[in-house]
């Protein structure tokens, strides 16, 4: 199995702490969403996990083995980075051959099948790929890597709607047939929400939440209606994400909906609604 543990990990750049005392356990075999606003520390966290950066403090282990400069451990993880760092003059096919050397489990027939599905020409050079195809190219290598832990940083950047759909379906099919740990870092929360099993939310270098998405959504709801009534309903409850429009008000309540509250809402003629992951994320990460 492949359990990842962060022990008090910090990363400082001068006086800025990009990551601040992160303690985190990533259990094997789940699809995780790593969610955070710009500059929250998502990429720093992934770079530390994959030894692209070294922590200022703390340690990261995979199954008890430190990841620091440890090729045996690093070979079990594949990281699809946001930037394209493949040699620009290589063709797609050459890059695949090269991936096979670093990741012996790399599934060439599957990679080639994916290039057909996505319409990626394997004879094109890396430098000739558009933004969308550059993402597709990197995503295909990640999907075919057969690593135990596959990390995607903004995997659908520049992809059109059809290709995004195709990517998510391939990701699910691939995960289903070959269970592995998947970590997806993305800003497109809405479209990935139902694919995730757990959400990890990072804010200003700290993990503020790690929870199964289903539990997270079950433990929050929105209440909306006439402003003064919403206020009296929300009194004493943990709330976030207030929106007002004239006399209309909508509030996200961060608790499980109790029967007595449901009846209270009915009495006050207020509407109770489901919270979406994206809205909850916005409520939780707003300053």
């Amino acid at each position, binding site marked *: 199995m492949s359990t990842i543990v962060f022990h008090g990990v910090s990363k400082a750049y001068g006086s800025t702490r990009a990551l601040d005392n992160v303690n985190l356990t990533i259990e094997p075999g789940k699809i995780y969403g790593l969610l955070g606003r710009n500059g929250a520390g998502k990429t720093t966290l992934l770079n530390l996990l994959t030894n692209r950066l070294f922590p200022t403090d703390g340690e990261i282990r995979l199954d008890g083995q430190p990841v620091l400069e440890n090729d045996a451990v690093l070979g079990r993880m594949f990281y699809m980075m946001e930037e394209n760092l493949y040699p620009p003059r290589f063709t797609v096919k050459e890059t695949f051959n090269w991936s096979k050397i670093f990741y012996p489990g790399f599934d060439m027939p599957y990679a080639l099948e994916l290039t057909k599905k996505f319409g990626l020409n394997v004879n094109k050079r890396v430098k000739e790929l558009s933004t969308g195809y550059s993402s597709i190219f990197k995503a295909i290598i990640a999907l075919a890597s057969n690593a135990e832990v596959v990390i995607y940083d903004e995997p659908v950047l520049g992809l059109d709607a059809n290709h995004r759909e195709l990517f998510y379906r391939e990701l699910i099919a691939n995960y289903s047939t070959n269970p592995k740990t998947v970590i997806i870092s993305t800003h497109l929360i809405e479209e990935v929400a*139902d*694919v995730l099993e757990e959400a990890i939310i990072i804010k200003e270098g700290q993990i503020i939440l790690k929870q199964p998405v*289903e539990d997270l959504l079950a433990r929050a709801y929105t209440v909306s209606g006439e402003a003064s009534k919403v206020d009296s309903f929300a009194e004493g409850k943990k709330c976030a994400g207030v929106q007002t429009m004239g006399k209309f008000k909508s509030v996200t309540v961060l608790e499980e909906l109790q029967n007595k509250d449901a009846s209270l809402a009915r009495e006050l003629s207020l509407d*109770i*609604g*489901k919270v979406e992951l994206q809205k909850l994320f916005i409520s939780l990460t707003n300053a």
Partner: protein
Amino acid sequence: MRLDFNSEKPIYLQLAEAIEDDILKGIFEEESQVASTTELAVTLKINPATAGKGLNLLVDEGIVYKRRGVGMFVATGAKEMILQKRKESFFQTYILSLLEEAAKLGISVEEVTAMLERGRKK
């Protein structure tokens, strides 16, 4: 099969209900194979664990059963089981709340019956 991602209901429950609907409609016949967790997850673009949870709910209720190494099948009598279950939940969700609301408005049971009759003729 369609899921309403805006519904308040958790997705696994919606999925279980959607499969039940398809069994009622005869899309999945008794003793025929239902879609696998992977097929459901890929088609609906949902997490396989969520899809599995929905299917397991049906397994626990005896509506669907597992044939080792082959897949999930609709049990004999599944249609009847679903109908019974739906009737009970119809009573719980519609009839009881109907009577509760009627009592609040001072509408007698006789009046409710008359209203039902009137509604039926529309």
